[in-house]
């Protein structure tokens, strides 16, 4: 920022590398095509023309985790689905983010029982929780904007430090250890 002040208005903008990288990350954050329950319907609505998430650089949902940056966990995660969810997360390349959309993904919601994971943060690290049952498309977009805000404040090397892999023993899916080996 110092250069313009000294050199006057030359049509040059100086910024930090971090600023540019985070700008890039927020403006091309492709979500994974991945819906588990009724929240997925609202997620589709958010992607459709009325709300149009591609205004925020989320052009399309990638069907392959290898091409996705953002996992929107839309719906309740059953215990049997938890290892699958973790595997999909492990297959996504860094940097990656997770939004727990809706009550069930965030904390189990109304399904306080043995069959449903009580919050997807037991399996994967969650960045933003969106409340609602299901949240309106606007509420999801609000969650995404909150995530963008978070990403803008991140350091470039922060991610790998924060995101040490979850110790599998501590997760609900600990029994499925075989299925949870990092695919690296």
């Amino acid at each position: 920022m110092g250069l313009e002040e000294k050199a006057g208005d030359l049509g040059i903008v100086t910024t930090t590398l971090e600023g540019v990288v985070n700008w890039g990350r927020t403006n091309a954050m492709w979500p994974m095509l991945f819906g588990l329950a009724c929240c997925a319907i609202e997620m589709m609505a958010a992607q459709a023309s009325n709300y149009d998430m591609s205004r925020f650089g989320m052009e399309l949902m990638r069907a392959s985790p290898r091409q996705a940056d953002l996992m929107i966990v839309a719906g309740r995660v059953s215990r049997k689905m938890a290892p699958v969810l973790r595997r999909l997360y492990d297959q996504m390349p860094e940097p990656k983010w997770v939004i727990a959309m809706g009550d069930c993904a965030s904390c189990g919601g109304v399904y306080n029982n043995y069959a449903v994971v009580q919050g997807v943060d037991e399996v994967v690290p969650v960045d933003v929780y969106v409340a609602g049952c299901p949240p309106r498309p606007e509420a999801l977009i609000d969650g995404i904007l909150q995530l963008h805000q978070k990403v803008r404040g991140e350091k470039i090397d922060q991610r790998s430090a924060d995101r040490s892999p979850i110790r599998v023993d501590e997760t609900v899916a600990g029994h499925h250890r075989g299925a949870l080996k990092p695919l690296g």
Partner: protein
Amino acid sequence: MLKGTMAYFKGLKTTAKYLFKKPVTIQYPDVKRPVRERFRGRHELKRFANGLERCIGCSLCAAACPADAIYVVPGQNDPAKPLSPGERHAAVYEINMLRCIFCGYCEDACPTNAIVLEHQYELSFYDRRSSIYTKDMLLVQPEDGYGEVPPVLEQTGRQLNPPAQIDL
């Protein structure tokens, strides 16, 4: 060959038709589409016209809640300076927004029409702890109108339940 080419233009005709139409997209963070009148969003705890809280700490909302999202601890009212009409008030009133499924059963259960699901729906959190809304956050502020009949009741044409009709 020709047929294939014509099919191509047929498809492009649809594209061209929409090219000159006004886009249907709502520019969400700038333009907010109004919700329906009876939309159920974030809760509010209402007050009477004189500023007293409607909530009497009876915990019926917590009993009615299918997701166990509400936590109420009743407290005794100080007769000299009561917070609500009657003997008791809610000393602690917490709603976990991530548990709440916005079904409105708490509204139905409330004998004083204290709790009303209002129109705010932008509820996203960075951590689960901040999703717990305390009584201070839920209670309406003086500038937001004391003592209005909760809008839900106006729409349904329902009468206030007896305790709310006590002449204060």
